[in-house]
């Protein structure tokens, strides 16, 4: 008997973890990834991974981790899912330890842990300042073992095109195009897991990799998947501005004692420490970002009048810095030319992470049966603001749940993909081939990359740190105009061999629709919560807005249609955030 097969789209932490779990459950995997899985964006995560292993005598516990995560996320996350993740976190860290990740150690040889933002406990395990890279490599190695055994077939350099959905609305596989040969093919599967990462490129420049376009999620949204909490975009407080990207300077720098400051009346002013005595430089990201933004944009106290403040590690022993933060200091040195061990770094906030994403249930299944999602492309773990070092955790945890849940779904599914009418596959393939032909004949006057650049500037200007309703309305109108200009694109390149323009133009369509989901979601939500901040409505409003934004694609109007779902608050009663003082314990609901 042939083994049943699950297709996994995306080879970052979530996709690889799901793959391992599926193989262990006896099924085979087709792993489809835009790039060599070893080059997935998970490599960019720096500071560490959270898990309450309680190795520092601080009475830490998964419950405390759970409460910090909910509190930091302004109580928008569904609690059962977050509780599941925090309980599994220590086990996940130990699993990576067994896989050989070179985590920093204590003198006794145990894993070392450091502090991160939004907590007063040391619960972040780390491998220098390249933890994401090291975790990804560990999973890449484990998957390679199964690849050598023939249990996993990798399709690297393949671009996801469409889900294949039958008349009953069930997902039966996908189509993908090989970037090099430009062959497009059907991948039949008994279930599909999407682990395609975040949509940072919608904002043009961000801390994300060039591959984080959000186009796979955008296409699935166009095909009927619900996109939840799209308006919640994390702006990381400490990035180095650059022409091609905003390079992240990890929160772990502050975990190791870095101080954020600028000059006021000729004196260094440690404004976060002043304003938030309990958490100091380790307030959650949304708060640090708004403070830095306010200092630079409103108070005009940025360094030399520019939009920059100092992130300073120069008072810390250089030996210690090299062992614990080496990776990011090298990045700063290579790209900026200054040695952060000697002079303070200059930083400004940058788009970093999407809390929102494809809606999933407790089993990581989207509203389309047979289609699962895990990692940054799903919305489930972080509420209105993600805590540092929870992203590696949520990516791994998402894959750890999605894999077995998809396998269970396949076992219980009465109809195998082999019994599905062949026309279901051929009709999607034909539609996708027709689209490629149409793109290759686009001969208007718009450059697709320039159009994308303009969209990024528009989104960054209007839909990031501070959101004003009148600007959101204007941005949405501009997006509609850009959608019209899209039709007038010139493909520039008709070579039928690694033609990047084709996949970029195809993906840009879904990115534009997600941009509308983000912008309109922000417009409707008249409150401030976590990363979503409106001066017109400066407070959190639980009575009206403690609810999940659900965007569904209206094909006729090419516009999102919004509904709102209850948030699960079954474990801890939502309470007001206040980082000026120590967090009080959560009260059980």
């Amino acid at each position, binding site marked *: 008997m042939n083994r049943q097969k699950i297709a996994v789209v995306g080879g970052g932490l979530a996709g690889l*973890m799901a793959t*391992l779990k599926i193989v262990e459950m006896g099924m085979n995997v087709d792993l489809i990834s835009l*790039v*060599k899985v*070893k*080059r*997935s*964006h998970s*490599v*960019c995560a720096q500071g560490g991974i959270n898990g309450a292993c309680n190795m520092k005598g601080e009475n830490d516990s998964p419950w405390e981790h759970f409460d910090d995560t909910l509190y930091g996320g302004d109580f928008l996350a569904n609690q059962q899912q977050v509780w599941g993740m925090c309980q599994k976190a220590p086990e996940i860290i*130990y*699993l990576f*330890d*067994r*896989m*050989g*990740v*070179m*985590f*920093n*150690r204590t*003198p*006794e*040889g*145990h*894993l070392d842990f450091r502090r991160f933002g939004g907590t007063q406990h040391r619960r972040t395990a780390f*491998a220098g300042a390249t933890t994401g*890279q*090291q975790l990804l*490599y560990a999973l890449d*190695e*484990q998957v*390679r*073992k199964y*690849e050598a055994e023939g249990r996993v077939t990798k399709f690297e350099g393949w671009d996801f095109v469409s889900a294949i959905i039958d008349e009953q609305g069930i997902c039966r596989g996908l189509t993908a195009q090989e970037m*090099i040969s430009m062959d497009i093919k059907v991948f039949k599967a008994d279930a599909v897991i999407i682990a395609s990462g975040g949509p940072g490129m919608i904002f043009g420049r961000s801390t994300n*990799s*060039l*591959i984080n376009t959000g186009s796979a999620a955008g296409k699935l949204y166009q095909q009927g998947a619900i996109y939840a909490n799209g308006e919640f975009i994390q702006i990381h407080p400490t990035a180095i501005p*650059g*022409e*091609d*990207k905003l390079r*992240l300077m990890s929160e772990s720098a502050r975990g190791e004692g870095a101080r954020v400051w600028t000059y006021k009346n000729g004196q260094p002013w440690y404004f976060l420490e002043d304003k938030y005595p309990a958490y100091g430089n380790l307030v959650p990201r949304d708060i640090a970002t708004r403070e830095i933004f306010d200092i630079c944009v409103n108070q005009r106290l940025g360094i030399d009048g520019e939009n920059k403040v100092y992130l300073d590690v120069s008072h810390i022993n250089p030996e210690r810095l090299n*062992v614990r933060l080496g990776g990011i200091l090298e*990045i700063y040195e*290579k*790209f900026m*030319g200054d040695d952060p061990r000697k002079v303070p770094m200059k930083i400004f906030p940058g788009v970093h992470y999407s809390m929102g994403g494809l809606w999933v249930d407790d089993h990581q299944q989207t509203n389309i049966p047979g289609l699962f999602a895990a990692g940054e492309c799903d919305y489930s773990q972080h509420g209105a603001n993600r805590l540092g070092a929870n992203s590696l955790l949520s990516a791994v945890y998402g894959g*750890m749940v999605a894999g077995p849940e998809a396998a269970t779904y396949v076992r219980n599914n009465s109809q195998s993909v082999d019994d599905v009418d062949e026309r279901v596959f051929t009709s999607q393939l034909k539609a996708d081939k027709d689209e490629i032909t149409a793109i290759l004949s686009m001969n208007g006057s718009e*450059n697709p*990359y*320039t159009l994308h*650049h303009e969209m990024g500037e528009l989104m960054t200007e209007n839909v990031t740190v501070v959101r004003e309703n009148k600007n959101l309305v204007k941005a949405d109108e501009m997006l509609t105009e850009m959608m019209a200009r899209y039709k007038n694109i010139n493909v*520039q*390149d008709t*070579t039928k*061999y*690694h033609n*990047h323009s084709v996949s970029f133009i195809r993906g840009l369509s879904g990115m534009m629709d997600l941009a509308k989901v983000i912008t309109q979601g922000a417009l409707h939500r008249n409150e401030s919560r976590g990363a979503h901040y409106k001066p017109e409505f400066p407070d959190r409003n639980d009575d009206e807005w403690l609810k999940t934004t659900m965007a569904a694609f209206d094909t006729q109007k090419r516009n999102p249609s919004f509904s709102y779902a209850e948030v699960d608050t079954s474990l801890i009663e939502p309470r007001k955030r206040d980082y000026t003082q120590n967090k009080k314990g959560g009260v059980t609901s």
Partner: protein
Amino acid sequence: MTGKTVHLKINRQDGPSSEPYVEEFNVPWRPSMNIISALIEIRRNPMNINGDETTPVQWESVCLEEVCGACSMLVNGKPRQACSTLVDTLEQPIHLAPLKTFPCERDLMVDRQKMFDALKEVKAWIDIDGTYDMGPGPKIPEKDRQWAYELSKCMTCGLCFEACPNVNPYSSFIGPAPLSQVRLFNTHPTGQIQAEERLDQIMGDGGLTSCGNAANCAEVCPKEIPLTHSIAELNKATTLYSFKRFFQL
């Protein structure tokens, strides 16, 4: 805008079996500009130095902060990561070309699959019993961890293959990076259990003995991995292992 420009000469190729050609570009200069920014500029305005419209140059890049290993290419003849190569540090015209030791796919893109295949051959993984909840891994002294971490930063970027005179069409040499991975996994307390299986893989044809000690690999490694040191250590390990095998110890 300062009006200053950057002059680029790029080796291009429309497909794996097409004839290579050189095309020149002028792009606007910007402060702290890297090679990728220049290529992005060409993509937004694909016009060559003669003012003729052309196809956008194709290249590979992902993270833009030198942790993914994608953007390897020859910059003024040297194998480098394009993202961390700043324009202001280079002589102009800046000459970009695909790596030569791997087959060219299009423009600056090459096929590096053989590096990944080599990782399979040398069993570059820790053989765990499964992803189940089985408690922590072995304790490791921090000083050992520190140098092993240096080895574990290998991005499989291929620069060491490009620089190595013994990686060529006439040799079956497995290459410096996969050898260093053997040392990494053979040092880990759990990885050690399969150490001999990995040594078996590198003692045959195309293994350790194909290294000519040119030491170019360590020089070009963007992560400064001590590749030559790894190879020397493996030579010791295989010698010991050969004795052991010979005497059936």
